[in-house]
């Protein structure tokens, strides 16, 4: 047996969250999918299996984990990480080197490999993740999806016997997801064991022999009392309008990121923008709210649109002492009925008095969404990868909210790699090389039979 977890449980010192008791046996070549609601302890389990808990954490751990015969409490951490590789949820925080090449080399040097072996593994990792064109690029200049590929390449190049991946698909486009699943299948075929913690499960079902471990959790998000319906939405309908974008172009550091983008979107629509990593989806949203210098026109009836934007990383905007203070900040006459409705719909009512920074990533994203919405933007809402870190229940809540906004005549535009989410929208815009290459209803742009394999993106 490669790994044996015997009733392992963990509790963080700063709050009551952690991991409920878990027992698991993993043999070489096994592939496990760990699922469960946001905040149930998936990331904590990943750290327990790879030895980072208890070596780097000072909480209370009970039970035991044996990895390749080594007890994770008594073995050196480097002995454990040689056997078990962990790719974390946040790719940006894993970038340690100044170039993509050095990022991969770092972990290989720590294995004490010869230069020839490092060179060989480096080239294979670059080829496997299509990173060769980026090898000299600074990780600072990569998109989130590209950083995720680098983090995966850097860990997989070490060829650990156990590979633990925490939400590896969250920022990958459909093609990169498919390639990753193929790489994982190859790893498993060569005898490596896989543990994949993921909300976006569908692409993983093609992994041979995949078994599911349901982590229900004794902690985490409140289980929804999902009674709020779109018809309850306590805000007035918006007058009809159309967002016009004409010949929008953005150049960053001498490179054209958006090129002559034009589209019109009437209020009342939910629009999904999909496309490969790094094609300019986030830049487009930034340009629509005026955060990005651009050429071309973005207007509603000749004036700048009033749109709210929620960012991929909620940590950049949360700072108040409680969730309530955060959402109501700077609002002189807040609509308290709307506030209560939002809290209920977003599953945040239990956290009103809790500091937002102590919440899980998914919960923080929902707080950030509530702060944007309570500002009551006249024309609608822009969401940058809203499904990151959200389980199925909260994705459903998100779509209910989006539909409620659209039903009142507002516009909702979201960028997403999650095609199950995109499939629920009214219109999908497919981006490539900084412009739109397809525009239509989801059933045309995202054919149901090939939800994870877009024909039009095959060659992207």
């Amino acid at each position: 047996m490669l790994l044996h977890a015997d009733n392992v449980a963990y509790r963080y010192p700063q709050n009551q969250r952690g991991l409920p008791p878990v027992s698991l046996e993993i043999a070489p070549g096994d592939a496990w999918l760990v699922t469960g609601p946001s905040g149930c302890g998936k990331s904590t389990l990943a750290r327990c299996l790879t030895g980072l808990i208890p070596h780097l954490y000072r909480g209370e751990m009970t039970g035991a984990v044996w990895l390749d015969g080594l007890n994770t409490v008594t073995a050196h951490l480097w002995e454990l990480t040689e056997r078990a590789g962990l790719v974390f949820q946040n790719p940006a925080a894993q970038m340690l080197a100044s170039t993509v090449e050095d990022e991969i080399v770092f972990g290989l040097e720590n294995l004490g490999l010869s230069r020839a072996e490092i060179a060989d593994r480096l080239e294979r990792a670059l080829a496997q993740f299509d990173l060769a064109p980026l090898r000299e690029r600074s990780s600072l200049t990569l998109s989130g999806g590209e950083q995720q590929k680098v983090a995966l390449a850097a860990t997989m190049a070490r060829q650990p016997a156990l590979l633990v991946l925490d939400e590896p698909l969250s920022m990958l486009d459909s093609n990169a997801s498919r390639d990753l699943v193929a790489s994982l299948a190859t790893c498993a075929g060569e005898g490596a064991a896989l543990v994949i913690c993921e909300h976006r499960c569908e692409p993983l079902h093609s992994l041979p022999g995949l078994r599911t471990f349901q982590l229900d959790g004794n902690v985490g998000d409140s289980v929804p009392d999902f009674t709020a319906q779109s018809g309850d939405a306590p805000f007035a309908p918006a007058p009809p309008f159309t967002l016009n974008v004409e010949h929008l172009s953005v150049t960053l550091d001498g490179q054209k990121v958006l090129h002559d983008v034009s589209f019109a979107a009437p209020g009342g629509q939910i629009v999904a923008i999909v496309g490969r990593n790094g094609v300019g989806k986030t830049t487009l949203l930034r340009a629509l709210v005026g955060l990005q210098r651009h050429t071309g026109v973005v207007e509603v009836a000749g004036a700048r649109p009033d749109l709210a934007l929620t960012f991929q990383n909620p940590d950049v905007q949360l700072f108040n002492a409680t969730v309530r203070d955060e959402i109501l900040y700077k609002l002189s006459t807040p609509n308290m009925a709307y506030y209560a409705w939002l809290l209920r719909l977003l599953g945040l009512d239990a956290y009103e008095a809790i500091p937002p920074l102590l919440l899980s990533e998914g919960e923080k994203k929902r707080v950030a969404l509530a702060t944007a919405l309570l500002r009551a933007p006249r024309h609608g809402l822009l969401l940058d990868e809203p499904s990151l870190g959200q389980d199925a229940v909260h994705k459903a809540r998100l779509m209910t909210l989006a539909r409620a906004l659209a039903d009142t005549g507002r516009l909702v535009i979201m960028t997403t790699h999650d095609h199950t989410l995109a499939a629920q929208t009214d219109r999908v815009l497919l981006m490539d090389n900084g412009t739109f290459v397809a525009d239509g209803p989801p059933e045309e742009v995202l054919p149901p039979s090939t939800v994870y394999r877009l024909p039009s993106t095959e060659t992207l």
Partner: protein
Amino acid sequence: MTRRKHRTAGLFIPALAADSPLRHADPRAKLLLSSLASLAVMLPLERLGVFMALYALLLLWARLLPAALRQIWRLRVLLVVIFVVDWLFISADLAVIIVMRIVLLVSVFAFFVSTTAPNELRLALERLRVPYRYAFSLSLAFQSVGLLQQEWHAIREAQVARGIRFAGDLQRALPQLRDFVALTVPAIVLTTRRAWGMTEAAYARGFDAPHRSAYHTLAMRWTDWALVLAALLVTGGLLFIR
């Protein structure tokens, strides 16, 4: 529309530094050159002027003068304030020499970071017998300057997007103090989280392993030795010859 500039000058960007002849100089030579230039701040006014003229010529030859001038320009307000205060309260000579020292140190920083990758700094420090743990930490801190800059812009944008306007609020200062919390709290949280994330990522890839090997190596070429010799002669001459 908010203008978002990519403030990259002065930080290591391979594409920007690639055309400098000093980009591929040995980092140990560049470290010595920078250290000597930093020592030169002790020179008296006339000799400091000579040193700075020679240093400017070096930067011009290395195609780094614009990057250094950009860094200095960013400090223009501070430089003017320091000059005026020193001039009014002490003397014009002191005001000039203090400003020249700051300009020299800033341009040394611009020269070093725009031609040296953090990993090269680590290699140089390791070769200079600095323990790996400290060399790695220093190179990571060096690299994080750019990250902090990016995150500060991201935080500012996110707060502007939720309706907080810092430019106007700054002028009203005290009543809007809480808005500065909107910048500083996320900055502290992100920095702490980033540092912890990097620590975890480093350990997860065997940072503490006792048997490291080295993929990249350093080798001093004759041009590096020539640079070192010239720097020693010029600085030594100006410091010690009466």
